[in-house]
């Protein structure tokens, strides 16, 4: 999957000051699950999955998540955001290969 790590963020179409909006984010990622051999023993290797997610708005932390292999492939998360002023929303996913994938969105009032 060439696209691994593409982060997309979806915001509501109109945001007013003071709203608590729901933001949806999605990342393309295989989220490998534990594999077992024929005896049912876990194959010991470094599995490739996202282990944490951090959301920040204007540099302030909004939400943090610890995720495991029990999260579906191409995971999506919806989280709340209290909008007091316009700014930049950043979402950072970190995976077990040491890579991190970042997505960002500008929040403006209409």
């Amino acid at each position, binding site marked *: 999957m060439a696209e691994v790590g593409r982060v997309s963020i979806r915001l509501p179409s109109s945001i007013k000051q003071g709203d*608590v909006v729901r933001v949806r984010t999605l990342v393309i990622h295989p989220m490998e699950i534990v594999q077992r051999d024929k005896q049912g023993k876990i194959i*010991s290797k470094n599995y490739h999955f996202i*282990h944490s997610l951090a959301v920040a708005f204007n540099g*302030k932390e909004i*939400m943090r998540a610890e995720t*495991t292999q029990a*999260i*579906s492939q191409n995971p999506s998360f919806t989280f*709340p955001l209290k909008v007091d002023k316009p700014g930049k929303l950043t979402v950072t996913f970190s995976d077990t290969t040491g890579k991190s994938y970042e997505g960002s969105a500008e929040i403006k009032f209409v």
Partner: protein
Amino acid sequence: MTALDLLDSLSAFMDFIELLKDDVTIGRRTFLRVITSVLAFVGAAKDILFSARAGAQSVATGLPLPDELIEATMKRLFGNRTLQPGAGKIKLDLPLIAEDGGNVAVTIESDLPVGGATHLNHIYIISDKNRRPMLAKFTFTPESGKAFVSTSVRLATSTDVRAIAEMSDGALYAVSKNVRVTISGCDVPPQS
């Protein structure tokens, strides 16, 4: 080696200190005893530190964590604290029947405040029958405005799914819901 072993060796050492106060001359036997207890203490401390580091390392490198029963997970996460019924405080939305266990939508919404004196800190998603029952842990800050999260998880089999909210004062509120899973989400290889 566990924390209990550490305590054991520590108390053995303390006993010896008490003994020292009583008689000033140290015999060969008592001397050997202090050496053993000190060594045991150092060994236990090293083991505990090492295992904590190994746990952290395995999360970051993707080595699979050992299988765990739901009781063990609850004990590890919450100790002996009691879970209060969270109906009315937390809303957990799950399908009644999940055709694909590999992709089950979970929505958790709570009216508990995320700011103020006692506020909601974490929300855990726990599945009773997964091999590693803790699926995800979410941490909220006052800037989030509301405790709400929605994601999709993998469920191994038909199971109870719990949403547990942990407050800043340590109180725990739990709700659970049963899901029937048609195809396991954990036994199929991931599609690439």
